[in-house]
């Protein structure tokens, strides 16, 4: 592979393994597939417990766990400039050409993108979440996002709804925002080898039991469905503050033998829970994309979901039954799904999912975005400051000040520790290159545990 085509990418986010969720697996799979395409990928995140320093993951994916402790919901304390020295070091050491930040909640991502822009790198940002415009938290969050995105080279969203949301929040031109959805590891989520018995119908729910995931809807829906269909059984996987309410509901309606509560399910066991059911129920109140639906569909389950956020875009109409987020309509949708069930073939569903979603496809599409980002013209500080200034009458000036200080801090760092003094990491890619096929096969096995 010609060297000029290769990108050297630094993925930055507060969220990465051992934490688990949509963003984490997105970064992991995207990195793996980009490595497979011959790019160099390095991940940077904050330290998790005693996991601090440099680690290698499957396929030679290098991960920097920088020694910053998270302080709230796995986020690092926003210090603005505290991370500049270490980020500059990593960027120079790894000879990075492009920085890719993930998730709008991540303070580390915002800081890294800001420093990278100060140092003249091209940056790409992926937004994984939706945000409203009404409450005070969102207003501030949106301002921060506007600050980061004011100067970003290209942005990626995981669904079209998410793109609309991001364009409104950050006032980016829509042409700069790409839609590249998540995908699912279809090799890991395979259907049960033989078809389940159809004399009993099992509905599976796997989600964190919190308000935003619609746990309160479940409390209303489950007893009603159990009353209407004596052959239906529920399996609820996941933990959270609303678990007590679900257990109360189970006691109140004496459904102990028909609603099984599993507690938190580790990701490696998700498939084994999924394949014991016929229908997957998702009751989220807001969702930018929802990987859980993909995993369920890949295991051959028929999905019933609330029609919120980007969910309607995720699956073709014949693979999902959508409902408004109110109990009556959800019961109707489950009724419809039970009627549809005899016509669903899990193996066929799995085969279709294989065609619809593939992380390799995601990586190829992301590669195009990287190419575009690198073609963006270089800008000097003054050009960029004028862009920040247009962010708002007060906020704009504040943003400018932040950027000017960042620039001065960078100049000081260049004096104290010239780039020539920072040792560059030797590339191990050549070594990987020869037996890339074997390595990647290996990684597939390991990741499918």
């Amino acid at each position, binding site marked *: 592979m010609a060297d000029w085509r290769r990108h050297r990418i630094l993925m930055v986010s507060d969220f990465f393994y051992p934490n688990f969720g949509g963003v984490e697996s997105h970064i992991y799979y995207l990195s793996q597939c980009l490595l497979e395409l011959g790019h160099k990928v390095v991940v940077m995140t904050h330290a998790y417990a005693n996991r601090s320093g440099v680690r290698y993951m499957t396929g030679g994916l290098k991960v920097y766990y920088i020694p910053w402790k998270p302080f709230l919901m796995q986020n690092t304390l926003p210090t603005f400039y505290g991370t500049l020295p270490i980020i500059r070091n990593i960027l120079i050491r790894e000879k990075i050409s492009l920085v890719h930040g993930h998730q709008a909640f991540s303070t580390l991502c915002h800081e890294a993108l800001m420093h990278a822009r100060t140092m003249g790198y091209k940056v790409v940002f992926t937004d994984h979440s939706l945000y409203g415009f*009404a409450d005070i938290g969102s207003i501030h969050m949106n301002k921060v996002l506007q600050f980061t995105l004011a100067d970003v080279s290209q942005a990626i969203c995981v669904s079209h709804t998410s793109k*609309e949301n991001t364009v409104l929040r950050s006032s980016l031109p*829509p*042409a700069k925002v790409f839609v590249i959805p998540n995908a699912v590891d279809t090799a890991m989520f395979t259907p049960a080898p033989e078809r389940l018995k159809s004399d009993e119908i099992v509905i599976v729910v796997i989600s964190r039991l919190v308000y935003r995931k619609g746990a*309160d809807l479940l409390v209303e829906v489950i007893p009603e469905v159990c009353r209407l269909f004596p052959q239906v059984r529920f399996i609820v996987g996941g933990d959270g503050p609303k678990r007590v309410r679900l257990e109360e509901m189970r006691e109140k309606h004496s459904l102990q033998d028909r609603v099984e509560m599993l507690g938190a399910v580790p990701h490696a066991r998700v498939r084994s829970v999924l394949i014991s059911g016929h229908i997957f129920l998702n009751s989220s109140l807001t969702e*930018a994309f929802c990987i859980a639906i993909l995993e369920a569909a890949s295991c051959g389950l028929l999905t019933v979901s609330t029609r919120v956020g980007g969910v309607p*875009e995720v699956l073709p109409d014949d693979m999902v039954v959508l409902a408004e987020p109110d109990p009556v309509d959800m019961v109707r949708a489950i009724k419809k799904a039970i009627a549809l069930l005899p016509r669903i073939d899990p193996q066929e569903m799995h085969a279709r999912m294989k065609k*619809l979603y593939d992380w390799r496809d995601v990586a190829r599409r992301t590669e195009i975005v990287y190419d575009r980002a690198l073609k963006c013209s270089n800008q000097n500080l003054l050009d960029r400051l004028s862009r920040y200034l247009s962010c708002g009458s007060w906020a704009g000036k504040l943003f400018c000040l932040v950027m000017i200080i960042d620039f001065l801090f960078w100049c000081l760092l260049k004096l104290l520790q010239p780039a020539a003094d920072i040792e560059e990491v030797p590339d191990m890619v050549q070594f990987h290159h020869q037996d890339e096929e074997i390595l990647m096969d290996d990684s597939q096995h390991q990741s499918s545990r």
Partner: protein
Amino acid sequence: MNANSSPTRPRWKKVAYGGMQPGYDDNYTDESFLEDMVMNANVVKRDMIKVMRDSISISQYLSIVALVGVVWTYTLKSTLDENSLLLIDATLLVSGFLVLLLTEEMLSLNLLFHYFLNIAFFMTGLYVLAPIYKTLTRSISSDSICSVTVVLLIVHLFLHDYSRSAVNAPGTWKNPTLTNCISLNASIVASVFIASRLPSWRNVFAIMLFSLLVFLFAPLVTYCIRKYSFRLHILFSFMLMVVSLALVYRLHRLLFIMFLVLLVFVTILCPYWLIRIQEYKFEINGPWDEAKLCFDITD
């Protein structure tokens, strides 16, 4: 956006599955972009007169607090002696009860007895504690007490619940919020401070009773009046404002001007300001909003 330019090119669909859509880049923006966005869906059109009428409650309470301040000052200057103070207390108590009786149709004899019992307890407690209050702040200078009192009153006014949304039946509070509690406590502490500067404990008792009567029950009484008849509420408020303005005028010229400006600001300028900034209201809703549950969650 030439979506239908070539016949071979399939229509763009708003879906995420199936990889990149043939003929369209990932950053393609369709005409349907943002078509589900709703702007200013629940904006209330405000009427100047109505906002002004609503703001009267604020001016009314400001006047009440101003009156309390005037009484405090006169007592501290010893212009008002304890007997006239007790007379004022009694008048307030009786008139407050009359208002409650006249405006509340639900008031039974039983409830009235309950009230009397409570007030008796309350007054006895205050009577017993008055000597303690008298010496409470002896070691602190009058100036610091006065300034702290002013600050506490400002806090009280700032956090006071002017809409009376927390009240449902006479005297019973429906989950008072933190700010309500802070506001009430600030006013009570202020009264204790002022009372502690007085020379005799009978004076202390009289002034404490007066302040507590006003701070605890004036919101309830004004609320009952407003609920009974809005016209009466307006009339009552204007009366209070005129009386307080007159008394403040007799007390101090500069204070009078400041108070007048404050009242004008609250009743005329603020409503006008609110109406003016309405046009900048910009509310966006769309499919990205978190869905609202259509039933009550009782934890």
